[in-house]
């Protein structure tokens, strides 16, 4: 496959190794260039593992807050579903990211695309986790599943926006002259994520079964939730 990606704008500081989970977090938030460079040059398994660990920890924590709204089985079901759903989204969209990244002109191989997706998911999860206290306050003070669902959706979309920006900037770093193909991919990723949330429902409220018995497109699901009478 593709060989290692040469740094386009080498900077000695960006070559310094990223150590520990706190180092990975720092790099993700403050020094993304260092992250892209090391993902591209070294394809360090420990760096990818660090990003993956961050993703898992942050998503599980946020999932607990999501589950706290209904309690009961949702204490464990919501975090597990959220984590599984996020990783599944990454896997489903990975082949198209690789192809669309190449179409945008970036010099990336499949492993680089894996690194970028894990980076996107890590930043998304960390941002989501930072919303957890706010989400928890709201979940303690409202009974409306629709209102809580909408709030989580806003937090998710905000986090996705930053995640996608990270990805776009990473590809520019790897030589993509145009981001048009990536804009298409970003829309695809958001749609997959919204559908995943619907496929793994209930995440916020409760139901008789752990997973839905009726398959629905996410827009249909939202419409039915906003207008419950239409279900009967």
């Amino acid at each position, binding site marked *: 496959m*593709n*060989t290692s990606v040469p740094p386009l704008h080498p900077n000695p500081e960006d070559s310094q190794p990223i150590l520990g989970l706190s180092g990975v977090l720092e790099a993700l938030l403050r020094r993304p260039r260092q992250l892209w460079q090391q993902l591209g040059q070294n394809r360090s398994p420990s760096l990818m593992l660090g990003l993956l660990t961050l993703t898992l920890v942050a998503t599980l924590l946020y999932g607990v807050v999501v589950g706290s709204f209904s309690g009961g089985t949702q204490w464990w079901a919501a975090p597990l579903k959220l984590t599984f759903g996020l990783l599944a989204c990454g*896997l*489903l*969209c990975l*082949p*198209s990211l*690789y*192809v*669309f990244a*190449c*179409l945008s*002109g*970036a*010099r990336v*191989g499949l492993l680089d695309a894996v690194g970028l997706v894990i980076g996107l998911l890590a930043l998304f999860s960390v941002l989501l986790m930072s919303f957890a206290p706010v989400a928890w306050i709201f979940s303690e003070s409202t009974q409306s599943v629709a209102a809580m669902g909408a709030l989580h959706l806003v937090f998710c979309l905000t986090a996705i926006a930053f995640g996608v920006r990270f990805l776009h900037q990473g590809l520019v770093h790897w030589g993509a002259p145009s981001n048009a*193909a990536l804009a*298409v991919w970003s829309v*695809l990723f958001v749609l*997959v994520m919204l*559908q*995943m949330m*619907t*496929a793994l429902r209930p995440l916020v409220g409760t139901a008789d079964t752990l997973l839905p018995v*009726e*398959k*629905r*497109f996410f827009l*249909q699901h939202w419409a039915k939730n906003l207008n419950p009478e239409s279900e009967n």
Partner: protein
Amino acid sequence: MSASRPIRLEALLRGETGELQRWLSQPDLLRIAWAVTLIVAGAGLFGAVVGGWRSELQAAYSAVKLPLILLITAAGNTALNGLLAPLLGIDLKLRQSFLAVLMSFVLAAVILASLAPVLAFLVWNLPDATSPPEAQRQAFALLQVAAVGAVAIAGVAANLRLYQGLRELAGSVAPARRLLFAWLATNLLLGAQLSWIARPFFGQPDLEVVFLRDDAFRSNFFEALAYNFRQLLSL
């Protein structure tokens, strides 16, 4: 090492300068075989996912039909596309015209294959062909919109790369643009009619699953399009 690979797919996807020339200047059977394999695998996977909503049999049929349409379109238009190239100002031989069109179909097939997991996830999430009629109808419509969207994305991206390559070969914009539009027109003409003959791809829930319909050769794509427009405008 990568230079010895029959097809440098990443370079073609990136639209690297000179890649189309390399592709056209060193044609060999191995490279054509690779291109055909990629089209069969990529478009076949996409076809299987699209047909999979209706049934396993429809998935198998669509997996065979979609790559066949691409390959027959490329082969069937070889002579016409080859004649149009010098007439419109780009000095391409018959074989090179075929290879250029084949390259754009390879790119389209690869893009379709990369979108197949997402489409498969959508298919898995839709009410299946045994659901109540209203749910079926909505699912069928949604699947069609999603699949057509994916084909449009793949088609646009592949043709942009083809245009880029033609521009490099021609050294200027105008002949490249003229030839691209001419090739698009000829490929659309044949490709659309082949798709009409080879229908169904999605497998309408209220019709039996068949490889080709009994009336496959009755009417044509453009007549059907005109009929639908008349219906739409109630003329």
